[in-house]
């Protein structure tokens, strides 16, 4: 459980985080979204006691981070995969971290295997790709087997295989009852990984909501050679109150966009009227669309579209 309460952080005159309040609950992956400069990294650094907030507080498991005796055993974090000294080996890097928090040597070996770096455990980090450094950073976060995990852009630099690995890892960690806070700019990836979303812009909270509330089913697309007949049948069904009020049927290309009826109802209805149907596709609003709409007004570095 992470609790951020009225957190404010200024850098000179710039307000990076502005009275931000949200909770990250265990047992689910919470996505942390916001445009560049929204204050995501600053918030994460404040949670970890690296940045001192001007006011407000961030608590992990009910305590300030710097009051935790062996923090790695309770909180694991990957903030910046590049922040390692290249002269060391993964084994050397993880060994000092393990020793500082009284984590056993066997754990070092097992996390190295878990993240797939066993083959390069004794090679110098200097020659590693960004993806390998990400894996090393994740290994460090997992080292103390913590109940709370924070990851800042962990999929940067990973190949598709690695991206999927991260997704499954995050979901697995949450399924074990851990608290997982994950920031990323990749909306499609976030849509697949996160259960809950915290969206911020200019240091303020824009949304704190379940993923399904942002990306629910928008409409159903139906394609038929007798679209007009089908439209009439669907309209009748809707008006006779078969389904929810406020449903609509609008022509769209070779087919229809239907709101207020689900695919099963549409299919049954078409069968009853003996109308051939070639496609029934439920369509969801993508996270990207919703996100862009939410952050439109607070994007500092937006690229202006040509038609505006």
């Amino acid at each position: 459980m992470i609790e951020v309460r009225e957190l404010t952080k200024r850098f000179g005159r710039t307000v990076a985080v502005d009275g931000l309040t949200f909770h990250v609950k265990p047992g689910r992956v919470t996505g942390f979204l916001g445009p560049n400069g929204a204050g995501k990294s600053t918030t994460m650094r404040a949670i970890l006691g690296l940045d001192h907030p001007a006011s407000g507080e961030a608590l992990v498991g009910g305590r300030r981070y710097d009051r935790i005796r062996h923090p790695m055993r309770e909180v694991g974090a990957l903030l910046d995969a590049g922040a390692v000294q290249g002269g060391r080996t993964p084994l050397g890097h993880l060994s000092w971290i393990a020793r500082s928090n009284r984590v056993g040597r066997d754990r070092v070996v097992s996390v190295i295997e878990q993240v797939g770096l066993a083959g390069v455990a004794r090679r110098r980090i200097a020659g590693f790709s960004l993806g390998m450094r990400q894996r090393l950073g994740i290994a460090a976060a997992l080292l103390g087997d913590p109940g709370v995990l924070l990851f800042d852009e962990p999929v940067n630099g990973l190949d598709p295989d690695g991206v999927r690995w991260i997704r499954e890892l995050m979901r697995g960690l949450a399924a074990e009852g851990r608290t997982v806070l994950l920031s990323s700019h990749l909306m499609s990836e976030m849509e697949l990984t996160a259960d809950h979303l915290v969206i911020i812009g200019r240091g303020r909270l824009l949304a704190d909501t379940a993923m399904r509330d942002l990306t629910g089913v928008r409409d159903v697309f139906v394609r038929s050679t007798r679209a007009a007949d089908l439209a009439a049948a669907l309209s009748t069904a809707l008006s006779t109150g078969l389904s929810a009020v406020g449903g609509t049927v609008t022509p769209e290309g070779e087919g229809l966009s239907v709101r207020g009826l689900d695919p099963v109802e549409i299919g049954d209805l078409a069968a009853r009227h003996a109308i051939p149907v070639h496609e029934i596709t439920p369509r969801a609003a993508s996270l990207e669309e919703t996100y862009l709409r939410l952050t439109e007004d607070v994007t500092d570095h937006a690229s202006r579209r040509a038609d505006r």
Partner: protein
Amino acid sequence: MIDALAAEWLKLRTLRSTSVVLGVVVVVVGLMALLAWYAAGLWDGLPPDQRDHLAVSSLPELTGMLGSLCLAVLGVLAVSGEYATGMIRSTFTVMPSRGRVLAAKAAVLAVVAFCAGLAAILATYALGRLIIGDRAIRGQSAEPLARQFPLFLAMSLAIVMFALIGLGLAAITRSAVAAIAVLVALWYVIPLVAFNLPAPWGDRLGSVLPGALAGELAGTGNPGSVGGSLLSPAAALAVMVAWVAVPYGVAAVLLTRRDA
């Protein structure tokens, strides 16, 4: 604290700068042996009545002086390397007590500096005696080790002091370049300035500079060098402690206050 010490020890041991710096110290000792061999050759080639004109600086003291700079650079790199890469944030994430991290770093560095310094000085002494033998070259003390050991010990403490000054400066400036620039000023430039100050100020400044303290602490003073000899051993020890405590204290306050 034990955990922090063990972690910082592992870190220093696996830091590449450590092996590089200690390698340079070994090279310094080798150079001293070469210098001894060269001096011995010169001495042998001179007619006996001219041998008195040949003077060579004390080799262990040269090692102490160069070793001070090497270990001070290691002190700088032990901290600045973490800032340069951003690893300092990993360090403060796994060990949130920043005062404890600084203390552990200082303690581990002090032990390494003392051992490396003393070993290099003793090795230089032994090689020097072995190569020079009973040639009475001026500047080379033929006194037995037991008589010279207090000075060697004081020189090793001075090396520890330099290393900790480097550590403190790096924690304050967060930059290797800035810290090493200040160090070289303390090690070389300011002593030169002191040497050129009018009496009695040259001697006064020269006596409290880091480079002069080992001689004063051992009670031998600094004959024939830039360093002054005004301080008593106790006063020299106090000044040595102050040279460490001031940058360390400033660093400790800044580390806790600043964002990492």
